[in-house]
């Protein structure tokens, strides 16, 4: 922590960056995102096991982009999200400085290539708890799974916290807000909730960096992250690729290839 704060301070003092995005103490054990815009504010930044949030959600925001070059103290999931955002052209290469804490050392990654190289060294995978939950869902019959999700999603009140906390949900106008025509009903009733979550899952399939932020953001505790995780794992299985691993866009679900045999069409 010392080292990363030290480096952040230097960068701010030299004027190479305009702000550092990291975590600060919030209420109780909660850690909240914090922008340190002056060297003096850097000391408020903390980095411990309680820091969970994917900070990449902020870097595409108009207000943050307006600040100028920003350094981000990035956990692996944040790094993956930033790389995926670069692949999807939402961030320019070199627009950010990524401060990656690796044990005692601090790595400064200032390009997509450097980020790709750094992430290639890290094994990406779900934590044991999520793995167990996914396995549990997998073991269910189709009918049981249907009942399970009907039940879970019945609590959804469409606050869109899952969407808003997701770094990959950066669209200016979300399909959910599109009302000419209103494909997905606004009201949070059974069918509307299901449609919303199905659309969200499909829009994130192949793009989800598996940070689990959506699940943490849900105020009523629906494990919505399992939906996108399941889609992502299935894509990894079938196409051998994961989101947030490559600087060049390679989107499994929509890449037209002339040598695709389309053997699944019968």
């Amino acid at each position: 922590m010392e080292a990363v704060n030290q480096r952040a301070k230097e960068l701010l003092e030299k004027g190479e960056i305009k702000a550092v995005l990291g975590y600060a103490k919030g209420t109780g054990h909660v850690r909240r995102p914090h922008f340190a815009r002056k060297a003096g504010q850097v000391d408020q930044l903390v980095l411990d096991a309680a820091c969970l949030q994917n900070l990449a959600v902020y870097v595409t925001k108009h207000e943050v982009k307006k600040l100028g070059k920003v350094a981000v103290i990035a956990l692996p999931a944040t790094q993956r999200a930033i790389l995926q955002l670069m692949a999807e052209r939402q961030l320019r290469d070199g627009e950010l400085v990524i401060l990656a804490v690796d044990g005692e050392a601090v790595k400064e990654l200032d390009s997509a290539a450097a980020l790709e190289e750094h992430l290639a060294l890290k094994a990406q995978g779900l934590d044991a708890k999520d793995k167990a939950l996914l396995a549990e869902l997998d073991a269910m019959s189709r009918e049981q799974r249907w009942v399970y999700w009907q039940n879970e999603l019945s609590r959804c009140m469409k606050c869109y916290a899952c969407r808003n906390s997701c770094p990959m949900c950066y669209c200016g106008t979300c399909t959910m807000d599109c009302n000419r025509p209103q494909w997905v009903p606004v009201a949070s009733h059974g069918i509307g909730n299901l449609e919303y979550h199905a659309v969200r899952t499909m829009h994130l399939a192949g793009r989800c960096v598996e940070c689990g932020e959506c699940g943490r953001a849900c105020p009523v505790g629906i494990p919505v992250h399992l939906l996108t995780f399941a889609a992502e794992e299935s894509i990894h299985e079938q196409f051998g690729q994961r989101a947030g691993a490559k600087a060049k866009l390679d989107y499994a679900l929509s890449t037209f290839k002339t040598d695709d045999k389309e053997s699944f069409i019968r």
Partner: protein
Amino acid sequence: MSRIGVFTCHCGENIGATVDCVKVAEMCKDIPGVVHSVEYKYMCSDPGQRQMQEAIKEHQLDGVVVAACSPRMHEPTFRRAAGDAGINPYMCEMANLREHCSWVHEKGDATTQKAADLIRVLVEKVKHNEPLHPIKVPVTRTAMVIGGGVGGIQVALDIANGGHKVVLVEKSPSIGGHMSQLSETFPTLDCSQCILTPRMVEAAQHPNITLMTYSEVEKVDGFIGNFKVTVRKKARKLDEKLCTGCGLCIQKCPNKKISDEFNEGLGTRTAIYVPFPQAVPNKPVIDLQNCTYYKTGKCKVCEKMCPTNAIRFDQEDELVTLDIGAIVLATGFKLMKTDAFPEYGYGKHKDIIDGMQFERLASASGPTSGVMKRPSDGKEPETVVFIACSGSRDRAKGVPYCSKICCMYTAKHAMLYKHKVHSGKAYVFYMDIRAAGKDYDEFVRRAIEEDEVKYIRGRVSKIYEEDGKLIVMGADTLMGGEPVVIKADMVVLATAVQSNDRSEELAQTLHVSYDSYGFFAEAHPKLRPVETNTAGIFLAGACQAPRDIPETVAQASGAAAKVVGLFSNDELTREPIVAVVNRQAAPVYSTCVGCFLCQGACPYQAIEQEEIKARSGEVIMTLARINPGLCQGCGTCVATCRTKAIDLQGFSNEQIYAELMTL
């Protein structure tokens, strides 16, 4: 409020027998926005169309639904009629009451109700229709013909004689194709070379034809009227301008034992070679795999011998990009090899040959100068067995289709053999004799009756070698399946016609469809046989299906007529059914977020980047833009776009939503 007219067609009995059209027309009067609803026996007829046009004027209709057959059949007809009556043609839609309703359901109230529902859906669509305007694109009046066989040559000559430029691309060093390898042709037994070579020379000398031999198409971009084709000109390793074709290099090349492709492996050639003496152009090419210089770094005999110093060992392949308006595929076929047949010895017997090898044996320019000698020991074969349908019509081991040309060329082969070896015996094993064509059956009868070729209806189960003879074990199914054993000196297999090597790859390069055997698919098997589903790309000859020479040449002229017809326009009009990325007022500009996931999804490379710039020149955002010239309206990008920033004109989100919601 819309003023929509509904015109229900009986299509004679096609719709009228199953759907109560009178009732449907009555029901449609109640749909909000419909001000006029009538039915008529044949809407597509002249009085039917006139009725619609008069109604448009009389009732001041702003939209029309014609409830009749498939839009693939008559949408252009009714849109033209609507356009002539003064409304935008794209305000006319068709409800498919025939294929989608009357043809697939029994007569009854439910069927009539479904017909009314289909119309209701289309009325909702028309309410959301926008007037569209055809897209105009210029035409480059240069055609490219891929494949320089008899089909390709014919296409090129016909287009060139029509006054347009043609680029004829051939992958081998000479044009001529399979026909140049044939000895004689059925059903007239005239010499193949004698009728083909003048055409080859004509193509080479025609002022409108550019020959690109030893070249292959690498990449095709663009669209009808405006293709950009990249051709790889393989290095011949000599300067074609300097080479006089004297042939000294070929005479002096020390490497003379290379299996000759033109003679189907029955003869040899040198490492620097022309495929055959009548080749066009008559310029040699160095075979890199077999040339001693490229293998060992020493030799260069040809360079020393060349009187004009034309040899260029350092010559590289050249990539040429050409502007092309239309493309004709005439890439031909290949024959299945004899090694595909375990029961006939996997091709290990030298005297079991395929039809093309027999052509070379019978040809005056072949390795034996036209004298019948069997390949193993050069002996004159006294008994020859011909086996038709080797691999064709064989679901188990070969291809299920009929190769079409084999019945005729087998009769020809047997005849040629009998003409050369009067005392010889010729047997033909066949399944059916398919000799449909002008003078074809007479030709086969002549083989049987005048030349005494023995035709045996039955299959050959096994061939094995014994005392220098090939023992052919067959059955005569017209004699109750009686076994037949023939001791033959040579066996000729009429092996199946297959699509050419790399035809799938070429189809993918050109974005044309192909069948499971690699033959290119026509747009319609009966009514559009020379067109592909990709506009501006046409077909000729055996690249589409097995074909003989007369058919290939006829189809080639057909394809040429299509190209010349296309080139008679100054500009082409394209249907405006293309995708569009929305644009809005600042500061939103568009709901497109510029992720460009659509770019990879587009099969036609139609999606470009557009920079939205401030007055200062600063780039505010980079958005997707769809080139309407390239877009084929497939809608893949529409489905890919998360923000629904892309709409397909004529099939917009709002239209489809309205259609669904009315049900």
